[in-house]
């Protein structure tokens, strides 16, 4: 039962992710990204990590993608804005994309060696997650918070009128 759910969810995730790339209309792309986020939230629920699932929905599907969609709505989508890019940019994009692919493959190869049984089943529940975050990973957690704060301050400084 769970295995079938996993296969169905995975098919939806991969399908929506592919449709995101192949859609001509950017609004459709955004909608498919939202669908992808929802199916990833489903994967979190299958892993018994309800908190992560709901945060995935609130933060990514509910906040970030709303902003994306808002920005897209300001653009005039009827005009074709796809201009031909110079050859140098194409090559640079190819090289960086290939490098990213390499990193992803490397991370997946090392990630696959973790046996599924070594992960605790209730690690994603909010109590355990909070305990882990605020004891074991306190420094990275706070460092990330400071990073976000500096990003926010940077964005405000950049957009502020003199």
């Amino acid at each position, binding site marked *: 039962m769970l295995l079938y759910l996993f296969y169905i969810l995975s098919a939806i995730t991969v399908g929506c992710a592919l449709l995101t790339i192949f859609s001509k209309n950017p609004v459709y792309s955004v909608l498919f990204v939202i669908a992808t986020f929802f199916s990833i939230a489903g994967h979190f629920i299958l892993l018994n990590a309800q908190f992560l699932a709901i*945060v995935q929905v609130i933060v990514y599907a509910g906040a970030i993608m709303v902003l994306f969609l808002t920005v897209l709505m300001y653009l005039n989508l009827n005009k074709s804005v796809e201009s031909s890019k110079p050859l140098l940019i194409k090559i640079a994009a190819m090289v960086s994309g290939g490098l990213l692919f390499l990193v992803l493959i490397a991370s997946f190869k090392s990630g696959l060696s973790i046996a599924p049984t070594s992960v605790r089943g209730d690690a994603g529940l909010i109590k355990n997650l909070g305990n882990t975050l605020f004891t074991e990973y306190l420094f990275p957690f706070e460092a990330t918070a400071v990073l976000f704060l500096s990003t926010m301050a940077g964005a405000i400084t950049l957009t502020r009128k003199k």
Partner: protein
Amino acid sequence: MEFALLFKILIVVGVFVLTLLVALYSTWAERKVSAIMQDRIGPNRAGPFGLLQPLADGVKMFMKEEIIPGQANRALFILGPCLAMLTAGMTSAIIPWGDVITINPESVPFSEYFTFGESKTYIVQAADINIGILYAFGVVSVGVYGIMIGGWASNNKYSLLGAIRASSQMISYELAMGLSMIAVIMMTGSLSVREIVEQQDGFNWNIWYQPLGFIIFLICAFAETNRAPFDLPECETELIGGYHTEYSSMKLGFFLFAEYFNMFISCAIIAAVYFGGYNFPFMHDLGLSDNAIAIIGIFVFLGKVIFGILFFMWIRWTLPRFRYDQLMKLGWQILIPLAIVNLLFTGLGIIVFK
């Protein structure tokens, strides 16, 4: 058939029918309240006191011609009202309508047809999930898509402006809403709505500890449901009909109906989180059995929700609409700092008094 499953199905269907009914009669109540406040009579033709008016409205909506604008994006145009309705109906799952009810197998009619599991107590709630309140926030934050997609797909400048207003308004007010809710979660130590309600036993309601948080949450609830004085996405003096300018027939009906749905749900969340849910004063001094108290509690809860809805209507017909820059200023420069101050004082209070 397992009895627990049957009970669950009954609760789910009951909650859905109740939500529909309350939302339906909210439209009638809105007209009556506005009529009373403006010294008019209001609907009084269909049935006694105009009670069949919602039915007449529904039939009218279904009978009207459906128009999809030629330049509109057809699929997304239809998806918009569907999403608005879907997200509006999803939140009612986590609302605790009543306390636990204990049922003996002997007292159930046709009990020989059911199998009874281990537990004989049943909760009057569709789903008691341990992240209930976050689930509500998740659904609310997704709720804006219906308006945005519908407004964009209409291919109309006014609809687009309405959709953009709706999205930025909802994102802005979600922050203050979440911050004011975190103060309650800090006090309760739980994200489950049922546990939040259980800790407000009797008259020990959260509003006595969180008056500022309650006011912030209430204002944000007005903004999130797009009700006046924050109904800028559909502001008819500037945007004709806002995001639903191009909609007709039942698609328009769904958009309008989703607003009443949302209003009911936000009143239910306010009642559960700040006004003790199904708890009422002196509930343990009446000398009644637990089941009787639980059943009275359901009606008490509904009473609180209906009072909340009437309050929403009272505000709508009293206050004028905000200007858009005033709305943003209120959200970002007043409500969010206030919510953070409230959060700090709550943390201080918890350290000092516990």
